[in-house]
Structure formats: C-alpha cells, structure tokens
C-alpha cells in the first residue's frame, strides 16, 4: 500500500486541469504553505482524506481504499460565476476521466471517482473571493 502514490492519482489531474486553463490557476495540496493572494488573484486547494480503507470479509480484512476529495477554487468576488465555472469544469472532467484509466504501471496505483457533490458556489464574507467547491467520493487500489 502506498497512500502517496494513490494520492497522486487524484491530485495530479486536478493540478494539471487548473494549470492548463488559458489563465492558469495555482493549486495547493495538503500541508503545503501558501500566501492567500490579494483581491483579484486566483488559487485552488485540494484536500484528500481517507475514510474506510479496509473491508471485513470472512477470513480477515482486505484493502479497499475509500476517501473524500474536496477541491475549492477561488476567484474574484462580484464578477459573476463564469470564471468559477471555467475553473471547476475541467477539474470535474479530469476526475471523471479517471474512471476509464488503468493502473499506473510506474506506481501500481489506480483510482476511481464515485458521487460528486457540487459544484457549490459561495461569495465569501471574510475574503474578497468567490468560491466554488466540489466534494468527491473516491476509491482506489494499490497493486504492489
């Protein structure tokens, strides 16, 4: 089992999707320090949490990685939802595309996305940003 390899399966498509926008957006992952940009700036965060990671069967537990991926993108407030939708749409597409991928032979990790909740949009009270949030159920397998 390698949580790091599996984590990359989900984080990499999100980072790439945001980097490939006409106006790229920098994306920060868990435990990565960053300075929130001033008003008018844009950024995104990705958080991955594991939930149940094994399933009990008659003769013990077998690995069955399941977790939650939360992607939050921030853009200018009071400018309408268009930019937020531009940011989150390729992220959703990239994550959905994981379901047709095969195991990465370099790492042995393969992941799938299940239900997506969102995107939900929020004009933040405490920051000059408009936020779009996507919550995704994920599952993964690691073939050593």
């Amino acid at each position: 089992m390698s949580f790091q390899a599996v984590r990359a399966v989900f984080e990499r498509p999100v980072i790439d999707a945001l980097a490939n926008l006409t106006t790229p957006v920098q994306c920060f992952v868990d435990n990565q320090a960053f300075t929130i940009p001033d008003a008018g700036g844009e950024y995104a965060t990705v958080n991955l949490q594991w939930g149940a990671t094994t399933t009990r069967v008659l003769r013990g537990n077998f690995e069955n990685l399941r977790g939650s991926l939360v992607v939050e993108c921030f853009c200018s407030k009071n400018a309408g939802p268009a930019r937020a939708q531009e940011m989150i749409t390729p992220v959703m597409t990239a994550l959905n595309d994981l379901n047709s991928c095969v195991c990465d032979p370099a790492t042995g990790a393969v992941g799938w996305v299940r239900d997506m909740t969102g995107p939900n949009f929020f004009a933040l009270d405490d920051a000059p940003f408009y936020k779009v949030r996507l919550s995704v159920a994920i599952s993964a397998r690691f073939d050593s």
Partner: protein
Amino acid sequence: MKKLTQLVPDVREALQTALEETVVQVHRDLVDVGPWWSGQFATSWEVQPGKKAIPANIDLVSSDRTPEDKASAQIDVPDSPNLGGYTLGNRSRYRLYAMDVLGDPNGRGRQQGTAPNKTAERFWYDTYRNSQLANTVERTLVNVFRRYK
C-alpha cells in the same frame, strides 16, 4: 415456508424498519464524527419524512471557552408512510461552518477544521458522506433483513 402473499407485507415492514434504523445509525455516526463544543450543533439534527429541505433556523448561543464532554444525542424518527424514506439535516444557522463548507467570517470557530482547538477532523462531513455513509447503510440493511427470515 411462507406464502408469497405473506412475504410482501414482511418485505415492506422490513424495508420500513431498515429506513428507520438507518437514519438513526447515520445520525449516531454524524454525532460521533462531528464537532461537539457546546453540543448545540450535534443536538440540532432533525429527521423529516420523505424528501424535505431542513431549514437552518436555530441561532448560535454563546458557549463556554472550552468544549464540553461529548454525550449521546437522541433523535426522533417520525412515521414515513409508503416507504417514503427520510431526510436528515441540521437546523443550526451555522451548519455550513460546522460542516467545514465555509470558514467563519469572524475568524472564530473551526476555520474549516484548521483551528487548533477543533473538536472534529477537517472536512469530517465530506469524509463521512463520501467514504463511510454507504457502509453504514449497507450494514444496517443487512442487520435488519437478517431478522426477517
């Protein structure tokens, strides 16, 4: 061996029991993994029959500077006719902050689970819904139907 005509009422009864026990178990899980400071949020979950919007209409009352001990929270499950299922939601006005969807605009509270004195893991609700809820539903269904042999 039961006749087919007897099985249908049994299945309906089992399904209704399963719906009730599932919503109770999910509520128990949410209280278990969710935040507990004064206990107000954890005791503001509500079950409604069918698909309903649960209004956020309970204001935050002032609370102690330190969290109180977590206790069990009970929930009333009303009748749900015709296997209409249930909606479980939280009525506190600050539920989006408690569920880490938003950070508190005043710089207080959980700060999306990054506050050092948080009483639940970051994104606890997303993690539960995305990775544990299905297990709870499946386990409860299996347990109920085992009793209806």
